[in-house]
């Protein structure tokens, strides 16, 4: 892994990830980023280390009288086998170097939204209304006209690069867009692009992206 992510989740998002308060889609983007980013993993470890130190400092609250007996009884019981989740992992994802978080994700299928562009929704076991999460593949050299966003949108780069007015983004980069960002991202001409997207707020019709994405007119 030579490339290290340069663009990281904002600190409040990382904190909300630590305490488990993100929607499933947002959580998956942060988890995927941390799979690819030693710096943010280290930040999360610091959170755990602080939590541990604060736990150590806490004055205990007495457990009920039979708590220790119960605990000693429970360790004698056989461990119920971990329910090994059956996860759909379709063939079209073969050949991509996916982080662990996405290997474990439930991704039943994909649909094409334009020539050279497909989307593959991520399915969650819990309520994920309000956020739409999908892998998006874009053939090299595509560009989107200038647009803005409604609600928060995260693009987590997995393969390839894209550029906009604000910079260039590659594997692991965590790109957060909202209403305040207006841009026209262009996928690198040299390499296809795969990213994980989580959109909060407005759910756009399937055809929207296909209409927006155009082959990049090379100059």
């Amino acid at each position, binding site marked *: 892994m030579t490339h290290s992510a340069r663009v990281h989740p904002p600190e409040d998002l990382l904190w909300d990830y630590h305490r488990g308060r993100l929607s499933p889609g947002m959580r998956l983007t942060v988890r995927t980023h941390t799979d690819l980013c030693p710096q943010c993993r280290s930040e999360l*470890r610091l959170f*755990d280390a602080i939590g541990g130190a*604060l*736990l*150590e400092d806490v004055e205990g609250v007495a457990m009920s009288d039979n708590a220790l007996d119960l605990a000693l009884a*429970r360790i004698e019981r056989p461990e119920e086998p971990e329910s090994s989740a059956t996860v759909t992992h379709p063939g079209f994802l073969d050949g991509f170097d996916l982080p662990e978080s996405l290997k474990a994700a439930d991704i039943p299928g994909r649909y094409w939204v334009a020539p050279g562009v497909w989307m593959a929704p991520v399915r969650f*076991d*819990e309520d994920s209304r309000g956020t739409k999460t999908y892998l998006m593949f874009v053939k090299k050299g595509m560009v989107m006209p200038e647009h803005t966003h409604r609600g928060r949108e995260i693009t987590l780069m997995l393969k390839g690069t894209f550029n906009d007015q604000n910079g260039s983004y590659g594997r692991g980069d965590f790109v957060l867009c909202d209403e305040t960002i207006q841009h026209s991202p262009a996928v690198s001409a040299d390499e296809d692009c795969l990213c994980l997207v989580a959109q909060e707020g407005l759910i756009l019709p399937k055809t929207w992206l296909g209409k927006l994405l155009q082959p990049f007119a090379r100059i």
Partner: protein
Amino acid sequence: MTFDHISVIGFAGPGMDTDTTPLRDPTPDSTPERLIARIAESRDRDAYALLFTRFAPKLKAFVMGQGLSAQEAEDLAQDAMLNVWRKAHLFDPAKATAVTWIYSIARNLRIDAARKAKRVRDLPDDLWQGEGEKPADQEMIDHQSAQSISVLIGALPPDQQTVLKMSFYEDLSHGDIAKALSLPLGTVKSRLRLALARLKTGLSAPGGRA
């Protein structure tokens, strides 16, 4: 890049323990790290009882502070300690102190419970166990002791301590803290940022400058 100043920044051996809590005589065989190792090596029930007695009440208190009822907190403490028993072989004292590992187990359980996930579970967020060395994980905070962090936290300016402790003890978002303290969000964020930066600096500095 290997990491070889463990002994400098932490892991004050049991003999150097300045902890004033009335724990059992911290002989080498009853440090929490050692107790977990005894469970891993020989399913040592005495070790488990000691560990349980020491940490279950703290876990209960910790999550009650975060808003769980006494019963929920008691159940979570039980489940967390059961996981300590079952996963003891995964504990790696070179990566984390026992209390940090226990905290992370409880945190994951708490998150799972909140999600009420029935069928598919997320990959556990096991930052401390299992995974082979990822090449760039040479960061210092893999190895520090809870004690040195505790000292560093105590040395933070009161404003920073307050927001840090509220974050953990009350399980609050940055926005919640801003509201609770009637502070601008930016102020909360910058205090936390400063606090984290100081802890990182303190942990990476030889001698753990506090």
